[in-house]
């Protein structure tokens, strides 16, 4: 318990350092743009592939579980839409990004720590925590909502293609289903979750990397811890946010 509270204290102290005034905003801006490419744009591929197939599977599963004449066919489209918007594109995509982006951040910062690159920054008088972590947090906060939107569009498209090509639903019924009783607030809910999860992934992974002590073995461990802790926190905050925003 004491160890947990100590770690929590270190995390908040690190965040205080991260959110201090940037030394030179123009450098931070450039760094943020680099991180948007590195952490955001480079994640479009994996998010697109996973979303497409998840949308397809959700549609097929819903179809096989609603093979009953009392259920209208458009229910498949509606189920696909709501599953993707409410859970998949925010939560499941965040878990995937925790694996890809989280381990990447922890190993990058951890390697900088063990090879004294962070010491070199501190030596020059640079606030290393802010310089290394703030651009990553800003980049993911800005770009992950876009990834979620892409995931929603691609997921629903995947569902539509799987449904129509396999013949479990007609195109008209699917499109009617995804338009039926649409609640725009669900998108807002999904975006709020995405932003919170983006912060968790980036800050927790950076924290794990920043305090690595040792060598390559410890960097690997930090990378694993980053993914595990981010994933658990995402699941925990998913419950909290769902209760707060949908109840």
């Amino acid at each position: 318990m004491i160890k947990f509270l100590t770690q929590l204290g270190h995390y908040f102290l690190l965040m205080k350092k991260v959110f201090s005034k940037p030394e030179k905003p123009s450098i931070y801006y450039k760094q943020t743009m680099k991180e948007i490419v590195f952490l955001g744009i480079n994640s479009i591929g994996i998010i697109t592939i996973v979303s497409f197939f998840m949308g397809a599977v959700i549609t097929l599963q819903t179809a096989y579980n609603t093979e009953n004449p009392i259920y209208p066919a458009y229910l498949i489209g509606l189920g696909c839409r709501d599953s993707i918007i409410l859970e998949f594109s925010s939560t499941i995509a965040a878990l995937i990004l925790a694996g890809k982006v989280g381990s990447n951040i922890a190993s990058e910062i951890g390697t900088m720590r063990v090879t004294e690159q962070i010491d070199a920054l501190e030596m020059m008088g640079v606030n290393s925590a802010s310089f290394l972590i703030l651009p990553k947090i800003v980049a993911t906060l800005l770009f992950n909502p876009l990834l979620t939107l892409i995931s929603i569009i691609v997921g629903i498209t995947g569902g539509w293609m799987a449904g129509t090509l396999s013949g479990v639903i007609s195109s008209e019924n699917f499109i009617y289903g995804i338009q039926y009783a649409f609640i725009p607030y669900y998108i807002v809910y999904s975006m709020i979750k995405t932003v919170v999860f983006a912060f968790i992934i980036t800050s927790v992974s950076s924290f794990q990397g920043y305090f690595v002590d040792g060598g390559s073995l410890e960097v690997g461990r930090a990378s694993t811890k980053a993914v595990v802790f981010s994933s658990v926190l995402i699941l925990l905050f998913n419950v909290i946010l769902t209760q707060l925003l949908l109840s």
Partner: protein
Amino acid sequence: MIRIKNLSKSFNGVNVLNDVSVTFETGKTNLIIGRSGSGKTVLLKSIVGLHEVDEGEIWFEDILFNKLDFASKKEIRKEMGMLFQGSALFDSLTVEQNVRYPLDMFTEMSLPEKIERVNFCLKRVDIINANNLSPSEISGGMKKRVAIARAIALNPKYLFCDEPNSGLDPITAILIDALIKELTEEYSITTIVNTHDMNSVMEIGEKIVFISDGEKCWEGSKNDILHSDCETLNDFVFANSLAKQLRSSK
């Protein structure tokens, strides 16, 4: 001038530095020597503020450095350059960007001015036509030299070198030593070099401080070191068989 007074530092209850007092002089190559694990690197990192000390004072000229807040330390740190044991070049940047980094962060120079300064520093350390290479594409000796170029980019008053010769062949090691000595004299820098390489001691050592088990055991010049009556120092200086033979033949 850098003055250290009664410096102590421990990690998890283990004393690594114990009551170390020493003065490092301006325009001289000051060497901290000692066996691996004797506390040299901890002393150097404590001097530059990378480790918080438990007790003692670190004076840069007439400023008590270790009692300053982060913002005030930052001003002094702009006058420091440091060469780390593993060079610590930023992997994601090219050679040119590495040397330009302190200029980007702390000056209002235009890009052509910065590039001119970078090229001057790289030329000073004999690195030519490597501006666009990444650190992974250059040799260990070149990395050290690029790291020196980065360290001198802002015209530092203080230069710190942690094991500048580690992992280098003897000829490259001598070149790096010579470069450090030249820069120290040329710009009248207060230079502190951590080393356990006796070649470096004899080549560039002007003031030498010997550390053993976290305590200062001896200080003097390279001329004095061969005639010391400090047994621990003699064991260190005359560690190899050739040196032992030379000593016994005297």
